[in-house]
């Protein structure tokens, strides 16, 4: 890596008063460095260089600013740098200030950085704290939900940011505040076609929020009505019987012939997990049964090809059509599981995962063989043709 004197020299090239071409060359160099792990680790030990680079995000040359933002995106992707970025360089206040500026050109890059910084709990807590101090989570949600807030940026990565933040109970409590309208504003984005990042972020947020079963009743009530928004991406154009149709939530009735299901299997799996979470309480189970979730799942099961997603679907269906648990065990989240049972369950889970992997491998191999057979066949055809020509 660089020697101390070389590092010091490069640092001097970053000072704002330097000539533009010198600054540009230096930032380009650091951008290259940040592109791989050793470079990042090196920079971790040089907080003054990082501070210099961060200062250049206010430079008048857009090219330099852009490079600097990409450097920080790379750096924030490495978990070991989070502490120095947030603690020593103190990037957060500056980033947040620019985020709420509707004219700012690099807001998408800011969102990506913030999303990276919130992946792990420790830094996530710090980020949440600073957000509350500087701009308030309310404003972040507002910006996210306002279409066209920033004409230079799409702000889709605020989705994963919110999803990451909701790993903290404080953030969940804010989103699920009954006296405000926060979670309701996120619901329509479960079908936002234009961005899988935004869609996934919102659904991840909802999934995290459903871990608190105390809120389930409110979430399923008319005040929020979360259920249709979770089911719509999983529902298809198949026609159901009149009886099944009448029991469905309003949004799922008379879906057009061209209705498409969610394309991303990971998102489909998240939706099913969220629904499964909502079956934890007796009231939740009853609501899902009453609203005819089962027929939707039945059609979905017929359509789904991915085995991991199918497994998640089957788990949900089991709860929907299975018997009610005995008294005292009705809230599945509040059960006390004895240690030996827990061990057995862990082993069973691991085994299931293994079997799914095997199944997936088998299917893959089958596909390969099919492909091979096809190309072999085509090869022989070609030989015959060639033979004829000769």
């Amino acid at each position, binding site marked *: 890596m660089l020697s101390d004197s070389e590092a010091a020299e490069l640092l001097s090239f970053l000072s704002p008063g330097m000539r533009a071409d010198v600054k540009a060359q230096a930032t380009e160099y650091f951008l290259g460095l940040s592109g791989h792990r050793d470079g990042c680790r090196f920079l971790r030990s040089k907080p003054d260089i990082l501070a210099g680079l961060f200062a250049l995000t206010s430079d008048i040359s857009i090219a330099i600013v852009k490079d600097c933002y990409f450097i920080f995106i790379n750096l924030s992707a490495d978990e070991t740098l989070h502490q120095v970025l947030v603690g020593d360089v103190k990037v957060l206040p500056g980033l947040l200030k620019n985020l709420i500026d509707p004219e700012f050109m690099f807001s998408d890059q800011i969102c990506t950085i913030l999303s990276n910084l919130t992946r792990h709990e420790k830094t996530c807590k710090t980020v949440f704290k600073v957000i509350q101090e500087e701009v308030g989570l309310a404003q972040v949600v507002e910006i996210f939900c306002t279409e066209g807030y920033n004409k230079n940026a799409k702000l889709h990565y605020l989705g994963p940011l919110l999803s990451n933040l909701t790993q903290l109970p404080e953030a969940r409590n804010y989103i699920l505040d009954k006296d405000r*309208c926060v979670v309701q504003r996120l619901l329509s984005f479960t079908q936002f076609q234009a961005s899988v990042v935004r869609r996934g972020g919102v659904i991840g947020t909802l999934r995290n929020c459903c871990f608190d079963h105390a809120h389930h009743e409110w979430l399923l009530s008319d005040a929020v009505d979360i259920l249709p928004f979770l089911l719509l991406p999983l529902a298809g154009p198949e026609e159901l019987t009149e009886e099944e149709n009448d029991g469905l939530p309003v949004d799922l009735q008379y879906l057009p012939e061209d209705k498409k299901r969610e394309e991303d299997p990971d998102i489909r799996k998240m939706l099913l997990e969220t629904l499964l979470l909502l079956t934890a309480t007796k009231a939740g189970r009853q609501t899902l049964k009453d609203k005819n979730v089962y027929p939707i799942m039945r059609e979905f099961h017929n359509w789904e090809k991915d085995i991991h997603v199918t497994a998640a679907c089957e788990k949900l269906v089991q709860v929907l059509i299975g018997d009610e648990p005995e008294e005292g065990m009705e809230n599945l989240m509040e059960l006390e599981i004895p240690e030996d049972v827990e061990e057995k369950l862990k082993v069973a889970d691991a085994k299931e995962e293994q079997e799914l992997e095997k199944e997936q491998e088998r299917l893959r191999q089958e596909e390969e063989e099919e492909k091979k057979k096809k190309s072999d066949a085509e090869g022989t055809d070609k030989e015959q043709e060639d033979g004829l020509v000769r």
Partner: protein
Amino acid sequence: MTPVCHSLYKIYKQHNNPSNLYFDPKMASSGAQYESDDGMDEFMDKFKTQRYKNAFPEEGWEEPLKRLTPKKYPELACLQAIIHDEDRPPEEQAKSLKDEGNEYFKEKNYQKAILSYTAGLKKKCGDQELDTVLLTNRAAAHFYLGNMRSALNDAAAAKKIKPDHLKALIRGAQCCIELRIFAEAMQWCDEGLKAHPTDKKLLELRAAADKHKRAAERDARKVKAKEKKLHGQKETLLAAIQDRGIKLLQSVKPPRRGSDSEDEDKGSSAAISQLSLDDLSSQEVTGAQVFLDEQGSLHWPVLFLYPEHQQSDFISAFCENTS
């Protein structure tokens, strides 16, 4: 007493009350004032038992009231001058008119309230707070009269002056819901919640508007689905008729373009679009029509004519397979 009488009486009392001197301090000591006070009370008490002979009719009071002009009745001119003294600053005048409107509003006399508020706004007093209240109150009066569009316009005008005025925001949302423009209702609620994030009424209205909006969307989908089904049935029927090589007589169709023609232009093949099922439906009360049954056989309404016997026979559903 009507509000106008009441306010006139109040002013009369005020001007004649010794402790509330306005005009001439000297009059305070004159005993005559006390007498005329009592006289007024007695005079007014009469109306509790006696019916006023020259009262305006309950229905159609507008006409006689119009004839009660200041020109013909100088007393009225005096009184009006006192209340609506043009020398008073416009804010004061507007405020009196607002109070007057509010009085009418309390009595549920929304038409008169609207007139007062309108007059208050005409003063253009420059007090934005007051104008916002006048507009919001007028919106409320229109709302209770069922004039949703006017109410919405007034609420919007109030919102323009003061974008965070809670009552205007609530009223606007309510009007949109009544007008069934639910997406706009939600916009009003969202704007309101930006300034007042915890207002219960706004939260309630938003949830209601959302529910209605989604129900309306479902209804639209239902209609479309039924139309499509019906159209599909018609197409299969026409195809079955065409398959059998039956030509349908095309009557000279009047230039009206009913939904039939539109659907057919969109989806059907050119051949089918030349046929029309309208001509096949009977003009009879029975309303018998050609239909295709589950086994794929056509049933026709048939009219038998027996000219020799001067008789006719009508069979509403003659299956094509019967001999």
